[in-house]
């Protein structure tokens, strides 16, 4: 191998190595920090991870907000209008958090309720995050299909 070729080979293998390391690190970082969004119906159906963080999206159910007196702990119900999920959060809630408002909460399942470490409500009261709207639409669609199937069964 002549020196020019040898040098090129070294340079190219270094580049390949660097790209490989960068890609591996990126994939690693992505996997560590990716969270999926589920609706209460999907959690109910067992699609959500039991021991890993995920995001729960839906609407804060009317009349479900309770404060634990003397603390910053609040519990409330997130619903997609088909299934409910009880959520507990300790901390200060965003300004737009209220009944009937769509929220995205991040956290873990703990003893059958969702233990949230973050609650997001968006800054425009008419705005529903697309993800939440999709999740609710999906829950709606899934809800209808089994209902139709049931109807067929009874006949």
């Amino acid at each position, binding site marked *: 191998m002549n020196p020019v070729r040898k040098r090129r080979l070294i340079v190219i293998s270094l580049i390949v190595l660097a790209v490989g390391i*960068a890609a591996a*690190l*990126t994939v690693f*970082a*992505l996997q*560590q*920090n*990716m*969270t*999926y*969004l589920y609706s209460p119906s999907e959690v109910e159906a067992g699609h959500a991870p039991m021991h890993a963080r995920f*995001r729960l*999206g839906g609407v804060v159910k009317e009349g479900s907000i309770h*404060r634990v*007196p*003397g*603390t*910053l702990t609040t519990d409330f119900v997130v619903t997609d209008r088909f299934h409910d999920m009880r959520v507990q959060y*300790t*901390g*200060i*809630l965003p*300004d*737009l958090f209220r009944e009937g408002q769509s929220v*995205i909460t991040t956290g873990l399942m703990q003893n059958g309720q969702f233990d949230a470490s973050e609650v997001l409500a*968006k*800054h*425009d*009261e*008419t*705005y529903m*995050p*697309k*993800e939440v709207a*999709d*999740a609710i639409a999906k829950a709606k669609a899934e809800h209808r299909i089994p209902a139709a199937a049931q109807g067929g069964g009874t006949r």
Partner: protein
Amino acid sequence: MIPELGQLALILALLLAALQCALPIFGAWRDHRPLMATARSLAVGQFVFVALAFGILTYAFLVQDFSVAYVAQNSNLQLPWWYRFPAVWGAHEGSLLLWVLILNVWTLAVAALGGKLPERFHARVLGVLGFVAFGFLLFSLTTSNPFARILPAPADGADLNPVLQDPGLIMHPPVLYMGYVGFSVAFAFAIAALLGGELQSAWVRWSRPWTNVAWGFLSAGIVAGSWWAYSELGWGGWWFWDPVENASFMPWLVGAALIHAQAVTDKRGGLRAWTMLLAIFAFSLSLLGTFLVRSGVLTSVHSFAADPKRGVFILGFLAVVVGGSLLLYALRAPKVAGGKPFALASRETLILIGNLMLTVAAATVLLGTLYPLVGEALNIGRISVGAPYFGFLFMLLMTPLVLALPFAPLSRWGNADLALWKRAGLRIVGLSILSGIIGWVLGARDFLPLLGVTAATYVLSGTAIYAIKRWKEAPRGKRYPLEMFGMLCAHAGVGVFIAGAILTRSLSIEQDVALSPGQTAHVGVYDFKFDGVAETQGPNWLAQQGTVDVSKNGETIVTLYPQKRTYPRGQVQTEASIHPGVFRDLYVSLGDPLGDGDWALRVYDKPFVRWIWAGGLLMMLGGFCAAADKRFRMRREATALEVSGATATTRIEVVEQNA
């Protein structure tokens, strides 16, 4: 009647933009001077009509003409007059008009200041800018007309989103857009060079000041946005890796790379193709940012109810601009590797490392930002990529850049003096270790704050060593040309920013507490005594206002008045109360009432948070100073000067070359 005039003005501007694109470029192609000469007057005409439209929209806000749908949606009778001006760009339609107006300001500047550019080149640049303006005016008129009427006119409007009723709205969008849109000039220069088959690198020198100014504005705009989020959103954070923040950060990163690549091309003739590619990417990312913000495809604090048509239009425009310019690039880009050779240890190599890191960082941010879209498209679920992804990769990628940063100015072009590296390196490392020891003595025991101090000292001392070396070696009056002064400022800004970012992150104390009136929360060395909440009133809001006395060792420092405002339509907005300081901010915001006069409070002690923005502003100053260098004053014979210095032998010229 008046709003219709605004609409008419926009339509005329659209027509002029179409002409401004077609005539000069055709003229330059056929070498037809009268056609080329139309570029300037068309640019002026377009500016006049866009400014007229903008003025009319502002007027509609001032007189509260609610028959204009956009005014009715974003203003009401109670809105104080000083928010009626920035309300013009408070939502989609108006901010798009601001985008076009700022593009016109840049175009006008190029038309006025670029008079000494070669005629054909100047005509092409203005033509490309005309094309961009045409796209955006068409977008505005077809999908987001700010002058659309709503009849019958409502008696009162809705409201300007309370988050936006803040002085931040006056500053942040125009400055940010100056930066965003400013990259269109660097882009237009690159495309004009490609169109003309300009294989020389003279165009790079002409475009350098424009790039620097745009980047300076973008830095300032990002700083303003970060400061606004910190003071207004009530979370006390200054950067969230939100898709829309990323949208402005990606062009900033590529812009930083572009500034340095342009310097290499200008001074050494190298990296020509790369510089051109970066200019295309910087502007494409600006467009992508507009797409992300405006289409509502991503969930972010900035996404308001969106219209999918808009997303499709911008995506199409993006495809035309990126696709077209990359095609042109593929056909025309300088194929022959040009420029002077350089050794492995040289300034070029260090700048390349920096360029590589900045562009790869932009790419990872892009990946993380668009990943949720990919997930949705491939139907693998609704994914979000958390902030730690960005933080981790960004830190990792910036490490080599920060390590290389002090050495780049200390290296000669072509071939660096290794003995100098060694001497300077020993001093820099020594000073950094010393600063770490001082930090230890002052009480920092954790890894992160010590890292912040040493890393910041590393950059700052390296920059200072170069400044001293110049002071000693260069003759009086030639020590710090503005271009170099800008570089020193911006590099010092990096050091200040690092100190601010790492120290704020590691030393902040953040507590959410429930307090009854009279109770005290201890946060770090500070006592926050809560004195209850009383009602107060503003021009268009009612507020619950808390009183919090902050003291240290029994001595009162300041009394803070955080508010929870309620606006006419019942929207609630938290106003944090902040005691700013050079070394620390004390920050209180109100949470929710807990009954019996008790409140949830968010109490922060944030050391060095101002340094983050000070660093950003230093970078801005750097961009502006560098652009003002007299090296960039245009001369007709600029081409002849290109890659001079090659045979420079006298000492002064060597030093100059080293600059």
